[in-house]
């Protein structure tokens, strides 16, 4: 190989297009790849008029191809649909049915983008990959570890979804946008004449139209010929008093206030779901407060697995201000988190990500 080949994961959006353009400008040998993850024509009953803002639409592939042509780089679409369904969509549904609120983006990062995509890149001769994630990587010579830091643009920081990456994965990964803000990235795109410079941002859950995951799950079940879990049940308070009825626990997530259909003197929130009993439990805002949580499948990123408790700031959902806490390792792959102040809506299925300032120490799934 005359020059080390860099594989850029191109979604057709501004961020990954700028990643490819920057690499080309720096004189690197680049191949652009788009992962076809989900067929947007499946489940027609939940598709709206437009697929804008969703991944893997033909428009996005068209855009990514146009950018690759503009840059004069080889470009391919790779079919990851069946892997995505197995490793992201099915676990996503299973989580909801088990009363958890999953983060498919993290599953996709752990099992698709930084696993199978990395393997595919290697297979076609690219040891390094680059993506448009807003996060920063640095190799710490003293510890020998790859450290991950929050993106310089805190509003766009995506480290909450990247805590699951292993050292081996990070060693082969580049996040060239970590030092930039989104407006800067757009400006670079305009200056470099990239065709998608003014394209809107994508939504968080790419395969679920309009964020209506319950409709997605129902439609998926109908497609698979699985009878929708006849899952009606009661909405109760902590004391077991029935306050209303629900159409399936998977419609509810901890902390949810809207669409409960209960008239009460004070605002009520979902405080827990019990799928085994088909029960949704609601309560006052202060009943959502928790001081502790257990994280499972913990992955340590910037530091080696610690042997003693450590102080950290812990984020329990993407839009959560990191809160001071003590993280106590419990065996190889678990940790107990005790917050200094109780936190609202600690939600099973979401991630707890441990930070030291802007350094990502590690993270795990909230049990």
């Amino acid at each position, binding site marked *: 190989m005359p020059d080390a080949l860099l594989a850029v994961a191109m979604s057709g959006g501004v961020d990954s297009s700028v990643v490819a353009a920057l690499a080309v400008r720096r004189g690197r040998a680049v191949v652009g790849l788009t992962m076809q993850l989900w067929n947007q024509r499946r489940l027609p009953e939940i598709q709206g008029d437009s697929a804008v803002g969703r991944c893997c639409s033909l428009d996005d592939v068209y855009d990514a191809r146009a950018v690759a042509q503009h840059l004069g780089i*080889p470009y391919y679409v790779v079919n990851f649909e069946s892997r995505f369904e197995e490793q992201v969509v099915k676990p996503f549904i299973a989580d909801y049915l088990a009363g958890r609120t999953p983060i498919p983006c993290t599953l996709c990062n752990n099992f698709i983008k930084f696993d199978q995509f990395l393997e595919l890149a*290697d297979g076609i001769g690219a040891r390094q990959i680059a993506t448009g994630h807003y996060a920063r990587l640095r190799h710490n010579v003293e510890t020998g570890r790859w450290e991950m830091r929050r993106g310089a643009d805190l509003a766009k920081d995506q480290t909450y979804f990247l805590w699951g990456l292993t050292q081996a994965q990070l060693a082969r990964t580049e996040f060239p946008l970590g030092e930039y803000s989104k407006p800067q990235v757009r400006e670079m795109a305009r200056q470099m004449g990239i065709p998608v410079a003014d394209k809107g941002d994508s939504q968080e859950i790419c395969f679920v139209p309009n964020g209506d995951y319950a409709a997605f799950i129902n439609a998926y079940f109908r497609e698979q010929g699985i009878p929708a879990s006849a899952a009606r049940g009661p909405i109760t308070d902590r004391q077991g008093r029935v306050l209303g009825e629900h159409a399936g626990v998977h419609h509810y997530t901890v902390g949810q206030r809207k669409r409960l259909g209960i008239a009460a003197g004070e605002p009520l929130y979902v405080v827990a779901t019990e799928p085994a009993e088909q029960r949704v439990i609601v309560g006052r805002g202060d009943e959502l407060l928790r001081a502790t949580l257990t994280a499972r499948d913990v992955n340590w990123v910037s530091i080696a697995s610690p042997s003693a408790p450590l102080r950290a700031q812990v984020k329990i959902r993407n839009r959560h201000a990191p809160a001071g806490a003590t993280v106590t390792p419990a065996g190889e792959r678990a940790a107990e988190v005790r917050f200094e102040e109780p936190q609202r809506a600690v939600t099973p299925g979401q991630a707890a990500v441990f930070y030291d300032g802007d350094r990502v120490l590690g993270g795990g799934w909230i049990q």
Partner: protein
Amino acid sequence: MRRFYFDHNATTPVAPEVREMLGSALSEVYGNASSIHHAGQVAKQKLEQARRQTASFLHCGPKEIVFTSGGTESDNLAIFGVIRRSTAPSRHLITSAIEHPAVLASCAQLEREGVEVTYLPVSPAGVVDPDDVRRALRRDTVLISIMHANNETGVVQPIGQIARIAREAGVLFHSDGVQAAGRVRVNVRTLGPDLYSISGHKFYAPKGTGALYVRPGVKIMPLLHGGRHEQDRRAGTENVPGSMALAAAAGWMEAHLDAEGERLSELRDHLEASVLNRVPDVAVNGGAAPRLPNTTSLCFEGVEGEAMVIALDLRGFAVSSGSACSSGAVEPSHVLIAMGLSRERAKASLRISLGRGNNREQVDALADAISQSVAHLRKLSPTYTAHA
């Protein structure tokens, strides 16, 4: 980078002699073949000359040739044309699981319109059993559509026998000959189909050219309605230069088919032998059946065909794997699945199709690149362990 093209079953480059002829045709033959004046007469004359040449290529009469826009239109015209002409209260159609999407999607559309369709299986070698055709016949069977040669494996189907079965049963028989015409000799008189589709760009004519052979006496309903072109079977101003190009390419093929077939089958066999010698755990899909001289479908255990196509392309070799879906991503081949391969093995397969521009040196370079690429991919593969 030097680039070598090994995907002639997808399409072929326009041959130099066709290109030359086309250049003068585009500038000189501009008339509408239906016009009364001199320019129109010149066009009509060229069109009919092209028709005679195309007919000679298929060994039929000129009136039996309908020029179309290509293989997909020919297949659609044959299938919809026959079914829609039939007024029977219930209509049944027999086809196979390994047909091209132009046939399969047409059948699927007819199913939505109330026509019953039987999809015949194939043997592990990729061949339709004529006895299965016989057994699938029903009182209301109107049409049998079985391809002449498969585009992915190159396996040649026993269409002579199927034609006899169809004739005995009084059922019309269409064969999609898009991949066979220009690769093997086609004599529609001795083979015996009632309808036969060909496509120009598979044998060095430009895209957008094709023809459908229709046996005398077979009535079809046109797809396109308008003027009275192509004996009321295909409305629309005739693509005279395109038809001339198709005929010119057919003429060249007719003259060179035996020599070129022999040359390509030697190259193909040499390629297969080189790969099989150097790479363990390779199977030739359809290798046990009679095949087109230019095609090989190789299954490399434990390898993603998609990754291999990209890796080879980055090194300058154009080959294919599966069929491209609308985004350009690759789906596992329905043909290989029908032959009983698992999804994994279907995805581990590569199609290499040779043509006029290929030579021994290129094939050796390809065999080198394949063996290196397979070794690299297998080293990374979580599923592959060498069979001792």
